[in-house]
């Protein structure tokens, strides 16, 4: 018999996942682990973890990790990568972390073209603190701090981080994927792999934005959350490569 699939060694077997049912953080963490193994870089990987549900993986991943203050992951990553250019450095951040409190750190790192990778898990809401409005919350979507739903007049519009970064000159690779279907999971894995390869080749800043669900705080079961991604989230956050400098003619 041929072994065609096995569990990634970058996740501890004896640990119990702290994620809610239907949460896609665990999917993304698995994909990252598989990519790290396939690229054979486990021994030089550093994950800079943001504050939020993204931090729940720290206990059971098997590679180096450090918690950054809320929003500061890209600054911490800058310090680590600049002093250890051989390491594979990536940040792992939610939308509140990356696009609200950490907006300055995120955009400034992208603008400097830092040679690390940002994995941005966009679930449209603040997960860990219980469903408050995020910069990426959709118009009309309810949040505990926008009980009547987000309205543009008061709260502005959902922020598109890939597009925002696309006006900067330095970023090398900006891509938006999702994990709502098996095909999209595969695309997400490929995007992460491409982003890590870019870094290993010294190409500069890459960001993979992954549109995910938060069934608990969306007030939905896991399957309805998949439909919500497809019908609502992806209508606002279209998937695809926003920039890939490797494809640009020199």
């Amino acid at each position, binding site marked *: 018999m041929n072994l065609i699939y096995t569990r990634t060694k970058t996740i501890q077997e004896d640990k119990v996942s702290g994620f809610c049912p239907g949460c896609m953080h665990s999917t993304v963490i698995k994909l990252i682990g598989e990519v790290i193994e396939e690229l054979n870089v486990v*021994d030089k990987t*550093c994950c800079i973890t943001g504050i939020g549900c993204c931090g729940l993986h720290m206990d059971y991943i098997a590679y180096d990790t*450090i*918690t950054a203050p809320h929003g500061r992951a890209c600054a*911490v990553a800058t*310090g680590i990568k600049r*002093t250890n250019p051989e390491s594979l450095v990536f940040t792992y951040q939610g939308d509140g972390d990356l696009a609200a409190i950490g907006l300055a750190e995120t955009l400034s790192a992208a603008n400097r073209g830092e040679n690390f990778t940002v994995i941005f898990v966009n679930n449209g809401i603040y997960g860990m603190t219980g469903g408050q409005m995020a910069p990426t919350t959709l118009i009309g979507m309810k949040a505990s701090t926008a009980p009547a739903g987000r309205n543009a007049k008061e709260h502005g519009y959902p922020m598109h981080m890939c597009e925002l970064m696309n006006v900067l000159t330095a970023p090398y690779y900006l891509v938006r994927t999702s994990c709502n279907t098996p095909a999209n999971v595969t695309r997400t894995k490929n995007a992460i792999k491409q982003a890590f390869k870019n870094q290993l080749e010294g190409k500069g800043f890459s960001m993979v934005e992954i549109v995910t669900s938060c069934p608990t705080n969306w007030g939905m079961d896991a399957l309805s959350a998949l439909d919500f991604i497809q019908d609502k989230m992806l209508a606002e956050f279209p998937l695809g490569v926003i920039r890939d400098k490797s494809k640009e003619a020199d």
Partner: protein
Amino acid sequence: MTRIFMKGCEAIAEAAVRAGCRFFAGYPITPQNEIPEYFARRMPEVGGVFIQGESEIASVNMVYGAASSGTRAMTSSSSCGISLKSEGISYAASARIPMVYCNVQRGGPGVGAIQPAQQDYFQATKAGGNGGFRMMVFAPSTVQEAIDLTYGAFDYADRDRNPVLILADGVIGTMMEPVSLPEMKPESEIEAIKQSKLKWACVGHELDYPNRSWIEPGHWNTADMQKANEEALKVYEAWEVNDVKVEEYMIDDAEVVLSAYGISGRIAAAAVDKLRAAGIKAGLIRPITVSPFPYSSYDKIDYKKCKGILSIEMSIPAQFAEDVKSAVKERCLVSTCLCSGGNIMSEQAVIDGVKKIMEGRV
């Protein structure tokens, strides 16, 4: 040893480079701009990294990252900028990451005044950030002392795996003085220091779960969090025994004792000489570490002879005086000599304060 003429801020930066600092990130603010500017020129010469961060918050977190990778790293700012850094400092203290930072104090609160002050004493010594952590805080009173303390600060930071603060002020930072510089640590030693941290540094490890690097500035589990705080406390308590630095000047026979730190301490020392020349037996206690505070120095005062203590600082309201009072324990009167707003302490104000004590006018 050759002596050269150097400005305080640049001297602090050069001392850090010679101590093996190879990463600096900072954000412009007067009166410490010469620190980042000096590093910007100097770091490329020694293979180090300089980054002008987009804010104090970003800069301190870059340092938190660089230090977490095992590199000797530093940041600096002044007063309101230090408030922004307190987030990263608290994280470094909680995660037990060694780093050095410098506060070239200006007037405050708020944006304050850009001129010299000592308005950040409580912030420096009692609560450099949330969570009740402590740091060693060194307060230089000359440019030479700023050099020596900065050079040594990296060793303390590494030994304790804790942030260390150089608490300077706008006078120390912007004044030029003749100094001699410590030797440049050889690259081999700097590399060895970095290697010695590899066990915990976040740079990547072989697949080996118990021995990977997990830098945790907090804990989900309450027992773990309490344990971390208890471990830190042991480090703080050891400072009181081993690491207090203080200048005690003519206190044995003193009938009046002056106490001050940093630039005020230097002005007070000059006042002591003048008072002695005028027949008043004055002495001085000048804490060099304001944390740990040299409480026991105040036990050496002969309280039968001493008419009072004059606590001198460039801060209104007084802050340093609170530590002096708790060291004196009501064994004699403590009065204060204060200025603020960017005004520099005058020797005459100190002498007048002493005379008031001697004449029983306080």
